[in-house]
C-alpha cells in the first residue's frame, strides 16, 4: 500500500514536471513562466531587488518554415534555445512563451545588467548559423528588455507586455537588435564607452593645471 502511494506520488511528480517543460526545446513552458515570474515579482516586493525579463522573438521564422519546411523550422528553434541556454546563468529561467517567442526571467537582476545580457544573447545567436546539408542558415532574433522594481503596480501579464513592446520596437528598427526603455537607465550607462568616459572625467580632474588631453 505504502509502496503504491510512493509510486503514485512519483508518477504525479513526473507528470507535473513534464507539464512544465516544453518538449521541443526543453525550456519551461508558459504555465511555469507565469508562476515563476509571479514568484520573482513577489520576491522583488519583499527584498527591493528588481526582477528583469528578456523577451525574444526569432526573426523571419515564418519565412524559414515556408522556405525550408517545419523540420528545419524546429531545428532552428532547437539551435537558438541551445545557444541561448549556454549564454545565460544557472539562476535564469528560460521559458518558451509560444511559437518562436521566448522569455528569460533574470531573478534579482538590475535593468542595466539585463540589457547587457540581452545583447550577449543576441550576439551569440547571430554568430552561430544553423548548419544544413551543404549550406548555412543565419539565425537572428529581436529582443526586448524590461525590469520590475519595488513599488510599481504591475501584473505578471503587464510585465511581459512591457518587454513585448520593446520586442516590437526591435523588429520595427530592423530586427537582430535589443530594444528597451533608455530613460530607465543612467544616461552614461546607455551611451558612453569606457574610453570616452576616461577622457571626459579628466576634464574636471585637470583643474587649473595644464590640460592633459
Amino acid at each position, binding site marked *: 500500500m505504502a509502496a503504491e502511494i510512493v509510486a503514485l506520488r512519483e508518477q504525479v511528480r513526473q507528470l507535473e514536471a513534464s507539464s512544465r517543460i516544453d518538449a521541443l526545446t526543453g525550456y519551461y513552458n508558459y504555465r511555469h513562466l507565469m508562476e515563476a515570474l509571479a514568484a520573482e515579482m513577489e520576491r522583488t516586493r519583499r527584498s527591493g531587488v528588481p526582477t528583469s525579463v528578456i523577451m525574444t522573438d526569432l526573426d523571419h521564422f515564418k519565412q524559414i518554415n515556408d522556405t525550408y519546411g517545419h523540420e528545419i523550422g524546429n531545428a532552428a528553434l532547437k539551435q537558438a534555445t541551445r545557444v541561448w541556454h549556454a549564454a545565460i546563468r544557472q539562476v535564469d529561467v528560460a521559458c518558451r512563451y509560444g511559437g518562436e517567442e521566448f522569455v528569460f526571467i533574470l531573478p534579482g537582476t538590475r535593468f542595466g545588467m539585463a540589457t547587457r545580457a540581452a545583447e550577449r544573447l543576441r550576439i551569440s545567436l547571430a554568430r552561430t548559423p544553423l548548419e544544413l546539408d551543404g549550406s548555412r542558415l543565419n539565425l537572428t532574433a529581436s529582443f526586448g528588455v524590461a525590469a520590475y522594481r519595488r513599488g510599481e503596480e504591475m501584473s505578471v501579464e503587464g510585465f511581459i507586455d512591457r518587454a513585448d513592446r520593446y520586442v516590437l520596437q526591435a523588429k520595427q528598427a530592423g530586427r537582430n537588435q535589443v530594444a528597451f526603455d*533608455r*530613460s530607465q537607465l543612467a*544616461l*552614461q550607462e*546607455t*551611451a*558612453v*564607452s569606457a574610453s*570616452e*568616459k576616461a*577622457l*571626459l*572625467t*579628466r*576634464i*574636471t580632474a*585637470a583643474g*587649473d593645471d595644464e*590640460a592633459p*588631453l
Partner: protein
Amino acid sequence: MGTPPFTMCITSGKGGVGKTSLAVNLGAALTRTDRKVLIVDGDLGLANVDIFFGLSVDTNILDILANGSDPLACVSFPLDNLGVLPATSGVPEMVALGPGDQDKLGGYLQCLFDHFDLVLIDTAAGIGASVLWFNSFVGDNLVVLTPEPTAITDAYALVKVLSTEHRRHRFEIVVNQVADTEEGARVFHQFQMVAGSFLDVDLNHLGTVVSDPLVGKAVRRQKPFVLASHFGPAAQAVRRIAADLDPRVVTAAASV
C-alpha cells in the same frame, strides 16, 4: 502665414545644472530687443518654469492634448513680450509621450510658435522619449554643462545619442557654474576635443555663466535675474549670450 520662429531646446542630460534658470533668463533678456519670446516647459515631470516667474497657472501643455484646449489660451504672460507654456508637475503617467501624442502635440505647438519670434524649450533631465522628441522638434539645440564629472558625461551621452540616432549634429554649448570664463573656455575646449574624436558633431561655445549667488536669490524672488536692479556676473553673461543669439532670430524671421 507668420514667419517661422527661431526655436531652441535647452537641454543637458543631468538635472540641476541650470537649464531652467538659463531658459527663463535668456528668454527675459531677449525681450529687451522687443522680440516676442515663448518659453515652453518641456519638463513634463518636474515642471518649474512657472515657479521661476512666480506664475500661478491652471492650464498646461498637457491640456492641449487631453482636452484640445486652445494652445494660445494656455500661455501665461509674466512679461509683456514673454509667454510661458507651463507643464504640469508630478504626474508621472503623463510624462511619457506616445508617438501619437507627439504628432498631435507637434502640430499644435507649430501653430502656437507662429505667434512668436523665438521659442525656448526647457527640457527634463535624462534621455527619455520626450527629451529626445523636443530636441528633434526644434531648429537648434543648446546643451548646458557644468564642470562636474557626471554633468559632463551626461551632456556628452545626450549629444552622442542625438547625433547618432536623431541626426542632430550642431550644438550650442553653455558652460554654467564655473569660477571664471577661463575655466569655461577650458571645459568647453576639452569637451570639444573628446566629442571631436568620437562623434560627428559641430560644437559652438555660446557662452560661460559663472557661479553667482544672485541666481539662487532670483529663484527665491521668482523674478529673472537679468531683470533685477542689482546686476551680477551671471546676468552679464546671459545678456551677452542673448546679444549673440539675437541676430540669428532676425535671420530666422527674414528667411521667408
